[in-house]
């Protein structure tokens, strides 16, 4: 953990146009929640639908992608990462710092709006808001780690991340139930289900699988990212 690296990364992510993207999706979620409330759709069922489909299913992977790759990929893209890597800072520490930055941004831009939107709809009933917020937080941390690693591994990190989040987690997961075991989204829903007593949400993955999987994926991705950064070579654009 290095506070200077963290400061630079925060500035790069929040000081540019990227922040509009980070704000757009949470605002849309809260806007939809307000709309549901105004039109009288603020029952637990539609709250659960909004949370599972929009907050966890759409907003979280996208924000994870933007924050997770955004902390490192632009620097690799324009070569300025070389200035960071030539300093006497351990490279795994750089990777860990960048992971913490991405995870903290996801907590602010994904988990807090999720809690707020759910609270707008059903208050504190059934622990729905707390459950989904915790699910979004934990899954956001895992997404940050995975997409940070992806940003170091490949220049097409965003595209591959989208293909994973949209095709694997959503499309393949709905046809081949086994694919849902390897989906961060489903792990988040398992945790949300555990905490909230709503009968409309059914988890497809057991808690005994989801929690170790989340921990292993997060730690593994951060460690691997550090190792990759140690042996990193900067190559030109294609």
């Amino acid at each position: 953990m290095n506070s200077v690296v963290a400061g630079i990364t925060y500035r790069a992510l929040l000081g540019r146009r990227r922040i509009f993207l980070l704000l757009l999706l949470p605002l849309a979620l809260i806007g939809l929640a307000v709309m549901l409330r105004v039109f009288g759709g603020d029952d637990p069922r539609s709250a659960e639908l909004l949370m599972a489909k929009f907050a966890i299913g759409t907003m979280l992977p996208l924000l994870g992608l933007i924050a997770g790759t955004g902390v490192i990929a632009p620097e690799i893209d324009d070569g300025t990462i070389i200035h960071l890597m030539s300093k006497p800072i351990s490279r795994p520490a750089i990777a860990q710092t960048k992971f913490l930055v991405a995870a903290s941004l996801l907590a602010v831009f994904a988990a807090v709006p999720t809690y707020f939107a759910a609270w707008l709809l059903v208050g504190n009933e059934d622990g729905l808001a707390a459950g989904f917020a915790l699910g979004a937080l934990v899954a956001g941390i895992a997404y940050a780690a995975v997409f940070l690693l992806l940003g170091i591994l490949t220049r097409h990190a965003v595209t591959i991340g989208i293909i994973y989040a949209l095709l694997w987690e959503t499309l393949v997961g709905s046809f081949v139930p086994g694919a849902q075991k390897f989906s961060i989204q489903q792990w988040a829903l398992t945790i949300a289900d555990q905490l909230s007593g709503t009968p409309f949400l059914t988890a497809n993955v057991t808690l005994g699988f989801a929690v170790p999987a989340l921990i292993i994926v997060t730690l593994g991705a951060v460690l691997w990212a550090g190792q990759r950064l140690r042996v990193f070579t900067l190559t030109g654009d294609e």
Partner: protein
Amino acid sequence: MSEIYDIGYRHYDGPRLGRGYSTRALTVHSLRGVFGLGRTARSKIIPFALGVIMLLPAVVSIAMMALMSRRGMSYSGFAVYMQTVVAIFLAAQAPTVVAPDLRFRVLPLYLSRPVTIAEYVTAKVIAMTAALFLLLAVPLTVIYVGELVIDMDGPPQTKEYLGALVMALVLALLLSSFGLAIASLTPRRGLGVASVIALYLLTSASVPVIFGTLYSTGNESGAAWAWLLNPFWLVDAVQVWLFGTTPNVPDGGYPPGPVPAILVVVLIGIGLAALAARYRKAAAR
């Protein structure tokens, strides 16, 4: 002007191929770039993999027609069912059309030739439209050829097939004008990809929520309008109006009349205007 720089080199007196030629050349170059042709093998993987995924339902459809003599996916519903893949293709490839020129600041080099901003933007839009059209039209044509070869009962659905092709072209133009306008806002490819897919997901993920709310509160005519938020359903609504196909939505239908068509035209106009405005600004830098 030429006298200032005339330091005695021989003049070019060969044929001048003109602006049409340069625009065509730029279009073909951009179209090849969308599919990664003439670039590294790595940049070919994603467009061709997505193209193969688009062909899978065509293969399944032909197999269903041949083995069970039942129709699989309808021509009119193809784009709506495959919308995720088309949107990923748009998001992944639209930035490759516009981002490098902005990023490496080679736009002045293009504009120092007899290529104007209007021609540059036209070439880029045509290239992206052609790429998206190919992505949709090839599987449709494969299904149609399969249908003709297998010789299904009843007349071939030529009208529906041609209608789907026309709507594929409209959809491709709508998607590419918007996709390129958004992607051209940033010189970074990754951010461009994320912006395009974020806008698509915003429209597609909010539609079921808005529709469900309005539908459950009994406002069924209002709920029909919710579908028009998503470009794929918007174009499908135009198809229903123009060709009388069945709407590809779970409940109810689209709002009747020519309003969706007017919306499509207006949106294409907005997309193209935004793109032109963006490039006028970028060229001035």
